């Protein structure tokens, strides 16, 4: 029993706790200047979501991940059905729809789709490690990627849909695919990008164009980018101090409690604070890579790879967009951004990683 416990990665858990607490501090700071009680409601909701996340994470952790893999296709199609349902609901209600409401609790299926996607791909690639060299066999995993990708992109939730792509390629890479084949696919993907352009909603196209030139839309996305840069930049080395960011407190930052919460961190804690947060994230990622390396089982390796690349990509895109280095695509910052579905799914993803790490000696 004690030997098993040794395999439980406490470092990851501690880092997440610290990040979550930092997140709460800044959720308070970002909501304080709004009408009374908004911050209270938000913090209670965030803590409740965390508790639900820990509960769900414990379940994910305690079931042997290979059993989860056996069920992964069932989950996968159930998830696609839910995503499709969200779309139909959206069509009926005439507008963007990302939420399903069950018994008064709304959740975003696309957030959970990311985890189930990792399981399904791991299950597929793990079983076929020899035959993946064959070009025809790559069609199937591409199909596994394509269905949820288009369902989520059509919602429209471009950010979440895009996350699936690097996760998919990282897992393909780790599965041992011929690098030439992989590069060929990435190349083909790049070539089809202009084609994908047609599927984007107008506001999504605009966001990408705005990223290329923020001056074309100084009122919408451009405004957010400019204000976010001013906030982070004005934090300088040590920041203006918690609760003292003027950009934040004077309501210059839109969406600063969700996608743009890192701007508040940057303004109030400065470069030092940002570096600490980055470091904490990096420790989690690095521990994940260690789990990946030490696991002999290919299934386990693939799951760990999926979670690691998922978290890395989200952190990279989110922080990159707040400092104006990457386009605004609407992705949350794991464990910090306000939002129940995002927090719960991030905790579940890490639980999956811990699950692999905990059981690695047996394979």
């Amino acid at each position, binding site marked *: 029993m004690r030997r098993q416990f040794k395999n439980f990665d406490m470092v990851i858990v501690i880092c997440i706790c610290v990040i979550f607490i930092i997140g709460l501090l800044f959720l308070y700071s970002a909501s304080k*200047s*709004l*009408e009374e009680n908004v911050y209270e409601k938000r913090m209670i909701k965030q803590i409740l979501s965390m508790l639900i996340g820990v509960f769900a994470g414990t379940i994910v952790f305690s079931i042997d991940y290979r059993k989860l893999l056996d069920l992964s296709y069932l989950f996968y199609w159930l998830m696609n059905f839910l995503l499709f349902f969200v779309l139909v609901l959206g069509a009926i*209600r*005439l*507008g*963007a729809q990302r939420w399903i409401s069950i018994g008064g609790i709304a959740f975003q299926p696309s957030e959970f789709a990311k985890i189930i996607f990792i399981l399904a791909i791991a299950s597929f690639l793990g079983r076929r490690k020899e035959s993946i060299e064959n070009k025809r066999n790559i069609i199937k995993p591409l199909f596994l990627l394509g269905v949820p990708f288009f369902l989520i992109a059509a919602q429209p939730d471009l950010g979440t849909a895009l996350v699936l792509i690097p996760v998919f390629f*990282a897992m393909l*890479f*780790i599965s*041992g695919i011929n690098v030439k084949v992989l590069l060929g696919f990435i190349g083909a993907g790049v070539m089809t990008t202009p084609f994908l352009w047609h599927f984007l*909603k107008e*506001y999504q196209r605009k966001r990408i164009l705005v990223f290329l030139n923020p*001056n074309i*839309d*100084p*009122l919408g996305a451009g*405004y957010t980018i*400019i*204000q976010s*840069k*001013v*906030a*982070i*930049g*004005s*934090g*300088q*080395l040590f920041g203006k101090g918690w609760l003292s960011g*003027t*950009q934040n407190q*004077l*309501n*210059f930052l839109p969406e600063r409690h969700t996608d743009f919460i890192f701007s508040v961190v*940057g*303004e109030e804690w*400065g*470069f030092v604070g*940002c*570096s600490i947060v*980055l470091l904490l*994230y*990096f420790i989690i*990622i*690095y521990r994940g*890579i260690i789990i*990946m*390396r030490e696991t002999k089982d290919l299934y386990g390796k693939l799951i760990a*790879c999926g979670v*690691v*690349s998922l978290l*890395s990509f989200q*952190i*990279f895109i989110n*922080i*990159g967009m707040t*400092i*104006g*280095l990457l386009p605004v695509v609407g992705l949350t910052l794991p464990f910090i951004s306000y939002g129940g579905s995002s927090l719960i799914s991030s905790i579940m993803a890490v639980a999956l990683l811990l699950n692999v790490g905990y059981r690695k000696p047996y394979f």
Partner: protein
Amino acid sequence: MRIKVLLGIIVSCFIFLFAGLFYVQIIKGADYKYKSENNRMILLPIEAPRGKIFDRNGRIIVDNRISFDVSVVYKNAKDSAAMINFLSDKLEVSKQFLREKMDEAKWQPYVPTLLLDDIGKDKAVFLEENSLDYPGLVISTRPRRFYPYHKYGASVIGYLGKINKDELSRYKHYGYTIRDYIGRSGIEREYDDYLRGHQGGMQVETDSVGRRKKTVSIKQAIKGKDIYLTIDIELEKYCDRLLGQRNGCIIVMAPDTGQIYALVSKPSYDPNIFVTNQEKAEVVNVLTNANGDYPLLNRAISCAYPPGSVFKIVVSLAALETMKITDKTYFNCSGSFSLGKASFKCWKKTGHGSQNIVEALTHSCNVFFYQAGVKIGVESIVHFAEELGFGKKTGIDIPGEIKGNLPSPSWKRKNIKEPWYLGDTVNLSIGQGFLLVTPIQLLRMVACVGNNGKMVTPYLVEKIEEVPVFNIEQQQLKVDEKNIKVIKDGLKRVVNDQNGTGMMAKVEQVVVSGKTGTAQNQTNVDHGWFSGFAPEKYPKVAVIVFVEYGGKGGYEASKIAQLVFEECIKVGLLKGTGNVESQ
């Protein structure tokens, strides 16, 4: 090995972020710090005017006017208590209301927060003159919808309402904002997408006390698209006045194209009340139907009534087409018709004697049609009624149209849980019983007969900006032209014969054909119908008049229709036909 490559990629991503943060916070940090302290950017919206609406002759029937709004930039308001006292005094609003608004303004201290909108020009000028004493007070203008013809045309144009929370969350992606108005009925609703402009805005740099220093960038508002209607607003106005205090509706249509020249539903309302703050009581009156007469209900398309004798046209066509009777078939009218124990009466107690279909139409004899209906059977009547567009929407391009009710034996079994009796057929033959039609359906049928069997889809929008809307749809019914001729002969005599029931509709300059109708209802006073067209051979204008509780159609409705036809001549819709001289 591969894991190392992955780690390498991730590490480079983190280094990239690290470098980015270093650049923004350390290298450029001082610049941004300066910007955040001294220059703050604010966003000021520029409202886009909605598209205008024109009538067929290019008269503006829906316009935009400038309204004056009072706002406050909280940061600049030195003495908000004094400002509240001043405004409450001059604008006649409660101090409590202003205090609440002022509290709202605290949350966005650099941006103007609206206190009161549409205060009128005189007050705006006065406040502007005194604004130096009250820093932070901002008088701004924005376009607001204006309906210069007030209640005339409201049933076509519709009205606007402030966007609600649910709609806002659904349409946010399409650029709607919390201050937007959205079409609630009529053209304003159906063509909201086109009429709506796209809001612009200015990004303005202000100094630390909120004064605007320079405009960083500006996005011009894009005006909504103009819409040109088929309506003639003068005719619309005339028809509205003809109905006066009576409830009901008048529709005037081109039978060969489906263009609607006028569509009036009474009582009406003034759409201006929904876009100003001065008429709140009237809005409540209209919305809660305080007078009990449903002003928002468009009687022309959203209400269904029994068509009464106008429906005899349909029965005639069914009878002639199925060859159950010809124009040589004579039935005797003794004043009543017996079916088992029941007796069905003709409106003329003494009876019409022996007559053929043309005479029966002319006199609107019930007994003739009772016998005809029984002879041809319910299935055929229903079939031809369907062909002529009953029981389904006409497809007119404003929202709220209903289907009415075309009963059939299967319908009755399903909904009333009773079999279809022969008595039901008898009732149906004179347009009574379960049959319910909308005025627009009835007009379209009469126009179809006038148009020698060509049926059209009624429409209101001619073009959007310069782009014509091609919605002329014609559908030729598969009927014998000879039969149509027989019916048209009857309809001509309804108006032009000595004993015709619609002789009140007769016009000097042009031959009018038509049919009267009386719709019995739960009350003792019947609804009156008249529907007809002119000129008789190749009609250019089709009219329907419906008067709620207007008594027998022969009198009131026909008289109104006559005046409508004469007005059509005056406004030039019947130019070059009959004896109408080109004016």
